[in-house]
């Protein structure tokens, strides 16, 4: 029986991305290290994403609280609102929203930038001038994305919880200190740590897929567009798959 072509293409691309990731581990930890470029990428990926991630997280916290209130009121459990919302945000919503926003913003930007560099021979020019373009362009971006996603996720948690506080006060009254004491009572390390760990993997996936798509961009401007587009689609899907696996592992370890 012949394997359908789309399935064959899927496995081939998965294999290529895995080899690309393996090359990152092979080359990434050998000198020469590109610290300057790593810091520059961390600035672009991390610092420059703070406003977008912050606004999204704030709205998510606010909306989640407003929408959850009626159901809790119906069951006479309005006082549980901060606990419920904070657990949902910290465990799942904040890391996922951060990762998806990053996949859109960072994944597309890396895919388009490297794709454009590829088709205009800038990557070849780097190689000719004695700089390893994989180390300079790929390793730094993957590392920056892996290190910045957890920080963005922490930021997103804080802003989303603040949004939730405002949401809780739109129709009810919860004092600042009561709200935060309820939030910290509800959240344990088993909620926080697994969700933080998975953001490293989200960042790694976004970096690897964005770089892979850009670095292997086909000739022409259409290829650059396709690289940016497929970087977002594939990394978003991968984030959901990683999340699914992370939930299963957390469950197996009894951390739910």
């Amino acid at each position: 029986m012949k394997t359908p072509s789309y399935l064959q293409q899927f496995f081939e691309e998965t294999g290529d991305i895995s080899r690309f990731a393996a090359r990152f581990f092979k080359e990434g930890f050998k000198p020469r290290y590109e610290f300057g470029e790593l810091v520059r990428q961390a600035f672009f990926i991390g610092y420059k994403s703070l406003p977008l991630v912050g606004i999204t997280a704030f709205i998510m916290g606010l909306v989640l609280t407003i929408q959850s209130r009626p159901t809790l009121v119906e069951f006479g459990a309005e006082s549980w609102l901060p606990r419920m919302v904070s657990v949902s945000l910290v465990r799942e919503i904040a890391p996922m929203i951060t990762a998806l926003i990053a996949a859109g913003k960072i994944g597309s930007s890396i895919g388009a930038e490297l794709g454009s560099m590829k088709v205009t021979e800038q990557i070849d020019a780097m190689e000719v001038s004695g700089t390893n373009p994989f180390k300079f362009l790929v390793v730094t971006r993957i590392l920056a994305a892996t290190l910045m996603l957890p920080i963005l996720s922490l930021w997103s948690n804080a802003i989303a919880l603040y949004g939730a506080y405002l949401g809780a006060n739109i129709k009810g009254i919860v004092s600042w200190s009561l709200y935060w004491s309820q939030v910290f009572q509800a959240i344990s390390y088993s909620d926080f740590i697994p969700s933080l760990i998975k953001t490293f993997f989200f960042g790694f996936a976004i970096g690897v897929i964005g770089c892979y798509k850009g670095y292997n961009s086909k000739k022409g401007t259409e290829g650059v567009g396709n690289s940016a587009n497929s970087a977002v689609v594939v990394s978003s899907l991968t984030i959901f798959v990683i999340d699914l696996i992370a939930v299963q592992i957390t469950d197996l370890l009894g951390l739910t």
Partner: protein
Amino acid sequence: MENAIVHEAVLVIRDLCKSFGTNKVLNHFNLDLYKGENLVVLGKSGSGKSVLIKCIIGLMKPEDGSITIFGQDVLTLEHEDLDRLRMKIGFLFQSNALYDSMTVRENLVFPLRRHWLKKDMSRVKTDELVLEALYNVGLEHTVDMMPIELSGGMRKRIALARTLILKPEIILYDEPTTGLDPITGKEIIQLMIDIQKKYQTSSVIISHDLQCVSMAADRVVMLIDGVCYATGTYADLRKSIDPKVKLFFD
């Protein structure tokens, strides 16, 4: 063109073969480049000229044959050794390949990073080299500009300045006049000739521009059907009665 050519081959290519699918673009291609020589490889579009130049610099791997530069076989060199050899070779890309997220200064400084990492070059020395390279192409005032702010001719000059910054002994030019108007093209060719005289470099110039060939070439190699079909001076080839050669000059 009259250069002080020393009959010592700095680049030797033997039986080079490269194909894409069933299309054999280089089929046992041979070439010698002598010290101080400006060699133009002439051929129509898609004849494999750019493939040849990319094989020389190690950006493409041929299927067979050998490329020897300063006595070192490019195809068998380890990556580090190849990088070291590449420091003696300048490459001017057809598309200029300037890093568009960097200023002109940063573009020129980039090839010097290896020296920084080895700590054998100070920042002051770096600045001197940048200004000297820009002076050679007459664009000192663009040092803090972005490539997007420059015209096509200026970008080509900056790319040439970046090629020159490491004082290469061989310069490979990939279609240096493509996309330029005839006057700017002529200026670039003149610049290439001046640079060759000043630094005594050897050059391989890939082109299908006859103005470029007539001005710059000490010797012309015609790449037709993947082989070195004809070789000689521009005047020799112009007088040729071979129909394939005549086709270029008519």
